[in-house]
């Protein structure tokens, strides 16, 4: 899907782990054009990003660092204020650090850390896999037309811990987990909107409408 007018399209950052097809397929369905790349040149050229994610935190950060793109990406996001959407592991990479298999530095775009889900007294199964309802603020335009009891698909063992000011949605799995975050032009979903059937596609549509208005 190439588009001559690159600055209008979203760049999916390909860092070697993760299922890119599920994202590109969802964008195809919704009719957005996109690029898939991992070079500094493309990061500078495009005006918004999706950081996808299936995988392990350590390996993902290692790949991103090997590609040498983290500095350029942080620069474009923090200084140029280009919108970025992190999905699942992609959202977790925004944190300062993670305790997944040791201790790893993240991109540090949002004050926060990534820690293992606590099975708690109910002895919950970890990873948290499957469909769970989300709790969100009805006034948030990202959740427009999304029914109160809509379910989204999760598949994660670790979760994002941050200041409640950045939290825009949560779900109950033992504790209340932060499952969507937003700080200025930085957005993250712990669940997979691209794998959450109709609710997920609606959410992605809302996201693009929202950033189109706010960050045009």
């Amino acid at each position, binding site marked *: 899907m190439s588009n001559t007018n690159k600055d209008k399209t979203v760049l999916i950052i390909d860092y070697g782990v993760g299922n890119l097809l599920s994202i590109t397929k969802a964008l195809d369905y919704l009719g957005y054009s996109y690029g898939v790349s991992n070079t500094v040149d493309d990061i500078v050229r495009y005006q918004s990003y999706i950081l996808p994610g299936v995988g392990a935190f350590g390996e993902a950060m290692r790949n991103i660092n090997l590609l040498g793109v983290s500095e350029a990406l942080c620069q474009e996001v923090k200084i140029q204020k280009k919108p970025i959407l992190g999905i699942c592991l992609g959202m977790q990479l925004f944190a300062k650090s993670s305790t997944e298999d040791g201790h790893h530095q993240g991109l540090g775009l949002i004050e926060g850390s990534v820690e293992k889900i606590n099975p708690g007294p109910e002895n919950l199964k970890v990873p948290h896999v*499957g469909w769970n309802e989300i709790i969100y603020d009805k006034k948030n335009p990202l959740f427009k037309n999304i029914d109160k009891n809509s379910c989204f698909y999760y598949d994660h063992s670790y979760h994002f811990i941050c200041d409640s000011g950045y939290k825009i949605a949560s779900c109950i799995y033992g504790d209340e987990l932060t499952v969507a975050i937003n700080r200025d032009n930085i957005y993250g979903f712990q669940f997979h909107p691209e794998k959450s059937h109709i609710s997920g596609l609606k959410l992605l549509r809302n996201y693009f409408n929202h950033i189109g208005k706010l960050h045009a």
Partner: protein
Amino acid sequence: MLKKRIIACILVKNGLAVQSIGFEKYLPIGSPIIVAEYLNKWGVDEIVYLDIDATINGREPNYRQVESVAKACFVPLSVGGGIKSINHMRDLTRCGADKIIVNSSLFEQKNLLMDAASAFGSQCIVAAVDVIKSDNSYLIKSNSGTIDREESLINWVLNLEKLGAGEIFVNCIHKDGKKTGFDIEILKEISDLVNVPVIGCGGMGSPQHVVDVFSGTDISGAAIGNYFNFIEHAPVILKSYLKTNNIDTRIDTEYDYNDHPRNMDGAIVKKDASALYELTFTYHEPEII
């Protein structure tokens, strides 16, 4: 709250979706891509694609077909069959597999599961085990039921969890295609034993069987093959029945079967003449996203 998962199983042999009976007899259904399309429309929570003759024919996964199936589904896709290396797994995720299912190769390659979990994260790796009950004990088979394994089931499952499996998929050969219900005894034992989600497969013949397995065990998902292939809207019919039995699943299809008459097994039966007479047709605008 986390919903129980209704997982559709597409078994593929020679590139065709098949119905399987006891891992021995196979009846053709059709193109796996078309099967995935309607399952996706009918609201299943997840699709499992198992290439059941890849390993026994020494073949790699059918990447092109997986990609076509992936393009047809907007729910998670787990792929298994013929996976012997991290490279196979990486290629499958590139073709749209959200999770990787490994089974037979784990017996030969003791490090594969650990390596996979560290490369992709545990949440991406499902370890499957094929179980058969004989003389009141449970034995493990591999390679589509063609090789008997020595390992004790309980030790093997604990080992899978320890090595980093994110979910355990238990397929009961003695229940496969029998339509007599899930093997609640072994599914309960395994689910109580491990701290990762367990998926039970084999034996579903009626909606009541799914109520029974979710009431009798702590499994996270029920995997269903044959039942979904022969009844139109089968996943919706099943989920409506689970709802009336207070089992919480995701329902987001526009229609339901909540007030449809059912028999003892939860299968829907024909409405009586007066209800049919009252039947009206309404047009639903397709939802535009």
